[in-house]
């Protein structure tokens, strides 16, 4: 099997078949990442396509010793941030039924060593968090994704978003409060109680 470095090398020389193979190898990772960022299946598809198209156009600048997956994620992240600045891919309709497009998505969240009941509870909680995330304002959702999902430091987030460290701190603080409020609201709407300690 041809490895990524060889495929990159071939693709850099203009071999489109090699690039298509690279897409196939990385499409799930990139698409998932885009889905997490955009929170919407269609937008994720658009973003992921744009990521690969830009990668194809910029492939000559890619250093082979770098990790292609990281490079693609970086492209996706920059595109997502830029598109948010242009009000594109704004997550106004986060897929509340992610499981409907990919039934395995939330089911896989629970750890293997947990009981079936715990798994169901955690699956439900993950669904709530996902829904709550989609209800947040984009400025809060953005920092929560960058910090809690992508684990960027405050400084990195400030640099990525072009804002101050204080703004990042403030948005994170408020974002985390808002998401808990949204989770409680969702639970009340569905007749459940507030956050349960067993949830995660």
């Amino acid at each position, binding site marked *: 099997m041809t490895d990524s470095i060889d495929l990159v090398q071939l693709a850099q020389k203009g071999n*489109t078949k090699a*690039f*298509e193979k690279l*897409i*196939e190898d990385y*499409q*799930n*990772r*990139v*698409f*998932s990442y885009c*889905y*997490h960022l955009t929170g919407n*299946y269609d937008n994720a*598809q658009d973003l*992921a*396509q744009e990521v*690969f*198209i830009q990668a*194809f156009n910029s492939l000559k600048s890619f250093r082979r010793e770098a990790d292609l997956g990281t490079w693609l994620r970086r492209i996706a992240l920059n595109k997502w941030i830029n598109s948010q600045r242009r009000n594109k891919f704004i997550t106004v309709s986060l897929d509340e039924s992610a499981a409907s*497009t*990919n039934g*395995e*998505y*939330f089911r*896989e*969240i629970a750890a293997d060593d947990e009981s079936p009941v715990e798994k169901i509870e955690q699956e439900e*909680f*993950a669904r709530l*968090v*996902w829904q709550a*995330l989609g209800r947040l304002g984009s400025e809060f959702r953005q920092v*929560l*994704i960058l*910090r*809690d*999902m*992508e*684990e960027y430091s*405050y400084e990195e987030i400030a640099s990525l978003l072009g804002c101050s460290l204080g703004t990042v*701190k403030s948005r*994170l*603080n408020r974002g*985390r409060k808002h*998401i*808990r409020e949204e*989770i409680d609201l969702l639970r009340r709407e569905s007749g459940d109680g507030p*956050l349960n*300690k067993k*949830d*995660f």
Partner: protein
Amino acid sequence: MGVNCIAAGELLSPFLDGELSREEEARLTEHLEGCPACRCELDEIKRVVAAVNYLGKREMAAPAGFSSAVMARINEEKTVTKNRLRHLKQAAAGAAAVLLLTAGVTALKPEPSGQIAQTPAQIESSGANQGGNPGSDLKSPGDGATGANNQPNSSPSDNSNESSDKLVDNNNENQRSSGVYSGSGSVQFTGDKEYVIVSTFIKIKVDDSEAAQEKARALVNNNGAQMQSLGQQTSDGKLCLVEKIVVSNSEAQNLVKELTALGSLISHQEQKADITQRYSELYNQYIALKNERAQTQDSAEAVQLERQIKQIEDQWRALEQQTSSQTIVLWLQQQ
């Protein structure tokens, strides 16, 4: 000093990320030890953060046909880019031609209209001296005819003749009596001849580009042409002196031959632009405007029409200049 629950609430999130100062952390820890509510809140934040983090680690399958869709878009963009490049090249070639021609025109210093409006025959008789005969009219380029038998159908009225004297700032009596408004057929188009603008690009390799430049200047002077330095350019990593030369059609061939002999020829390209159609269009516009001008009784309209007629005359002269001379762009590349 400790913190209350409100202040502690503000510190919980950065505490979780390790973003508190030691002092802040100490105060918060002290508060948390004695406050179950804030500890509970911290736990809730942790759980949500953990859930968000976990969500980000899940991988899902890309839609079916994803890679094909991307490749289709890439191929589509490549096609578009190719087309754009082709159009760009065409546009660049066109722009280069226009640049050459425009440069050719501007290189000729502005002269009184009577002098610019030389026929090629007159240019030839004056050895391509741009001064020429001040008594010449606007004539169909290249034919050297007086145009007596090819006048526009609409001979201008006396009024138009008078107005022309006001519009055309020309003190020459001959120009007044036989100018475009005089009815002597100064703007003529017979349609039996092609009018072509020729520009030539020569690139030669020389031992000493500055010495070659001087030799080129001497050749240009001998041929009654004009040379203007366009500066230096780098081509294939070599320094080139670039010269623009405007020479009459009659001398062009000879000059090109002499210039080419200055060094070893790298490239020689000749570009021709047929502007016969442009002549024809201008002529038709001219006739129509002259007719309108002859018929109008409205003084304001007359002024407007005369202005338009003047513009066409100017364009006609510019075209004459371009067709009666050639522009040579000479690249002298240092060995």
